[in-house]
């Protein structure tokens, strides 16, 4: 199915796309068909900056388990950071 549902996250940071590093302005997160992964549906994350055009994008397509593991790892890394860093 095409889910149409998308989470939009304002972003501050950088990503490296096909033309090198660029400043991020937004992250789109959605569960839908992948373009490349061999699965019916994946958790897709697009790190983008529309002001730099559609190719200013770092894309990942993750299985649901990988996405959950990633979310947990991000939280763990942030929690383990020394005080004042994150």
């Amino acid at each position, binding site marked *: *199915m095409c889910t149409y549902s998308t989470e939009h996250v304002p972003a501050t940071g950088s990503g490296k796309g096909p033309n090198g590093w660029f400043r991020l302005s937004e992250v789109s997160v959605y569960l839908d068909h992948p373009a490349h992964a061999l699965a019916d549906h994946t958790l897709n994350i697009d790190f983008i900056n*529309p002001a730099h055009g559609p190719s200013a994008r770092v894309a990942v397509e993750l299985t649901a388990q990988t996405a959950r593991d990633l979310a947990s790892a991000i939280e763990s890394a942030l929690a383990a950071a020394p005080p004042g860093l994150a």
Partner: protein
Amino acid sequence: MNEALTAETVMMKGHNGDEVEAYLARPDGTEFIGGVVLIHHLPGYDSSTKEMARKFAAYGYSALMPNLYYRDSPGASPDDAAAAARAKGGVPDEQVVGDVAGAAAYLRSLAGSNGRIGVIGHCSGGRQAFLAACSLPLDAAVDCYGGAVVHVPQGAPASMKPLIGLSENLSCPLLGLFGADDQFPTPPETAELSRTLDELSKPHEFRTFTGAGHAFFSVDRPSYRVEAAVEGWDKIWAFFGEHLAGKA
């Protein structure tokens, strides 16, 4: 059928007269050619849908697939363009209808056209094929597992509305090809659409394949189901053969 064809990228007039990129595949050396507007799925104007366009040409139809994401992403790769369109909240229904109308006019203007035009789409394109058939004068429409026709899912853009209320405007016969295991649309949803079309005396044929879910025509995805896809293509050839082929 010699299956000789020509395929190329062209520019056409879409909604509001906008110049829109489109992929055209047409048979060589044939007269009285029916036209097929091919609506790409949400993942975009991609190589697998272009391959379908060439298949239509091999079977004797001119097929034109407008790039629904061209306005905001000219020259972008299909996946980047699809992501950009999604980040913007998708393509408005009105714009899709205008692009299909432009594609139909383009096909009718081709040398050898018999003036008959059908529309087909898969997934989101299936929904949009139904939308186009309820909005434009067409000769045949094929909805391949289009969701959000009867019910719109949670989280969809607020601009997306169910289409079942447009059924009385359906301008042509409709072929619906669905998977029994699909969650979007579910078999009860397609049954509801069929009942509505029955009540309105709108000609339609729905086939729901057991053992198939969503996107069973997609040869490059794990969802591909060979039995459903082969029978589905046979249904399409019979349907377009009846409504689009030959001397008008």
